[in-house]
């Protein structure tokens, strides 16, 4: 690790850049909200409201003020953790998001872990034996990952493994009989059930998680193996690989001991981005698997024109994305001696 003055300056830069992007994100969501062709006041008070009630609601929402003042108000609210109310659930959107987001995190993280465990070895192997069968498998998966709609693959998987073979349970995070047995602590049901010693619930939750996580995991494997392959190939062209060969090291050892470690730092960025991209995939597949996460929440909000809730979800995904990127960027600077020069 290289903690010195330059390091802190670099870190400050990374952080500042993240804050600027975050600020831009807020402004962007604000303006998307203002694109709204429907009257947000009417949505609150209803069609039959009196003139006075309409005007009061208009002032409550701050819509009588200038656009700039509205923006300030919007930012103030967000800083105080207020994203407004959902028209659909009548809850504070922040509370709704707190409830649904852990389910999505659980799904996306599991899928990413599958992606790393299979994708990294596959990609490495594909690079080492170009045009060998692992290379073809990686390429095929790559094409699949970029060509198959995630929601459709989810449906097919459900048809085969749930309806026809009956090897996995149906929709949801746990069977109905286990519902409510575990109180929400982290929100991650696998963690909560273990912490509370509910092994039965844990087992059931795993069986529910397997299929959706595998479907998303395929996309994750596709992407991670392709990137790993590219990184390893790029490293193999470096002169230090020639040096290692001159030293008398065989290719296998070179790849494991010298090349792979040098790709880890770039891989961290890819994995972070992949986790973010899976949030998108989750929006599509959660509907299929009845997974009560952010995706299902956003879809229901969308279909009921609950714009605030959709924008709240959008903001959450954006912030998660920025955090993942910033984290990866910071890790890169901490771990890689090359980043210092």
């Amino acid at each position, binding site marked *: 690790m290289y903690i010195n003055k330059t390091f802190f300056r670099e870190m400050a830069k990374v952080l500042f850049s993240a804050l600027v992007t975050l600020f831009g994100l807020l402004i962007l969501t604000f303006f998307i909200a203002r694109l709204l062709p429907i009257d947000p006041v009417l949505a609150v008070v209803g069609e039959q409201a009196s003139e006075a009630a309409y005007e009061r609601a208009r002032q409550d929402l701050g819509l009588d003020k200038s656009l700039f003042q509205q923006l300030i108000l919007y930012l103030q609210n967000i800083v105080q953790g207020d994203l407004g109310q959902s028209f659909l659930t009548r809850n504070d959107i922040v509370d709704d998001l707190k409830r649904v987001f852990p389910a999505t995190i659980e799904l996306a993280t599991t899928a990413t872990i599958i992606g790393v465990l299979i994708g990294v070895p596959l990609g490495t192997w594909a690079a080492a034996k170009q045009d060998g069968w692992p290379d073809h498998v990686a390429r095929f998966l790559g094409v699949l990952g970029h060509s198959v709609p995630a929601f459709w693959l989810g449906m097919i998987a459900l048809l085969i493994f749930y309806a026809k073979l009956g090897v996995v349970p149906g929709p949801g995070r746990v069977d109905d009989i286990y519902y409510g047995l575990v109180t929400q602590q982290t929100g991650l049901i696998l963690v909560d059930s273990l912490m509370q010693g509910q092994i039965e619930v844990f087992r059931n939750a795993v069986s529910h998680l397997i299929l959706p996580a595998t479907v998303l995991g395929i996309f994750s494997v596709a992407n991670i193996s392709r990137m790993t392959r590219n990184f390893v190939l790029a490293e193999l062209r470096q002169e230090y690989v020639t040096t290692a060969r*001159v*030293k*008398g*090291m*065989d290719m296998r050892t070179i790849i494991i001991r*010298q090349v792979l470690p*040098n790709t880890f730092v770039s891989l961290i960025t890819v994995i972070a981005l992949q986790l973010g991209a899976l949030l998108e995939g989750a929006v599509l597949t959660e509907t299929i698997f009845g997974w009560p996460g952010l995706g299902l929440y956003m879809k229901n909000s969308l279909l009921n024109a609950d714009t605030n809730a959709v924008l709240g979800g959008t903001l959450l995904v954006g912030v998660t994305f920025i955090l993942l990127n910033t984290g990866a960027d910071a890790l890169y600077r901490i771990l890689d001696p090359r980043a*210092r020069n």
Partner: protein
Amino acid sequence: MNRSANDGMNNLIEVENLRVSFRTRLGEESEVLHGISFNVGHEKLGIVGESGSGKSITARSILRIMPPGSSTTADSISFKGRELTTLSEKEMCKFRGKHISMIMQDPKYSLNPTMRIGDQIAEMLRLHTKIGKKEALDRSLAALESVHMRDPERVMRAYPLELSGGMGQRVMIAMMLITAPGLLIADEPTSALDVSVQLQILSLLDELVTKSNMGLMFISHALHMVSSFCDRVIVMYKGNIVETCAASELANATHPYTRRLLDATETI
């Protein structure tokens, strides 16, 4: 010491009819080395030629570290009487670095950027000898001292990017000579360095090669450097050897390409 070019007994490596070709983008084979034969004894042999003449390819095809998409054939490549062309890749791995090693142009790229210097040198030793990590590191430190590295303890812990070009090349030399190979190939070892540092590296190479009585294949595009540094010179042009002579007799060379090189050098 008399270092005769044709004294077969003293030859370290003998190469006969070495050919290398690459596949082009249109899928045709394109030969870049047209069947060259030469040998290297316990001497400093210079190989000169412009870029693309096949100097580096000669070195790399002997070590069998050519990139994929190339094909190499030779009637014979023998080192101290041992035929290399028939060795398996596994046997070749044990051979490389132990008997022939190579330093390259730019230490900035030829050292692994994320490994500490000490570990990189020790790794070389541990590939070819059965010794513990501690002992390997101790001997690596000694190797750094033998190449007159200043502050070797600090360099052991440093990463390549923290070193200057000259220091990096000293590390490469220390690493490549730690197994006491019979032949060292130096592929443009000074062209990425400052002029003042170039001379230091050359005199270091001279000192170490003479001391251990090993062979040196010194590849360079700079004829004047080769002629003053080496015992014997091979001139290559478009994949062929066009001239072989003692460095002292280079002035009497007859091949038109060598003459052109000489003329170009004189005008500088």
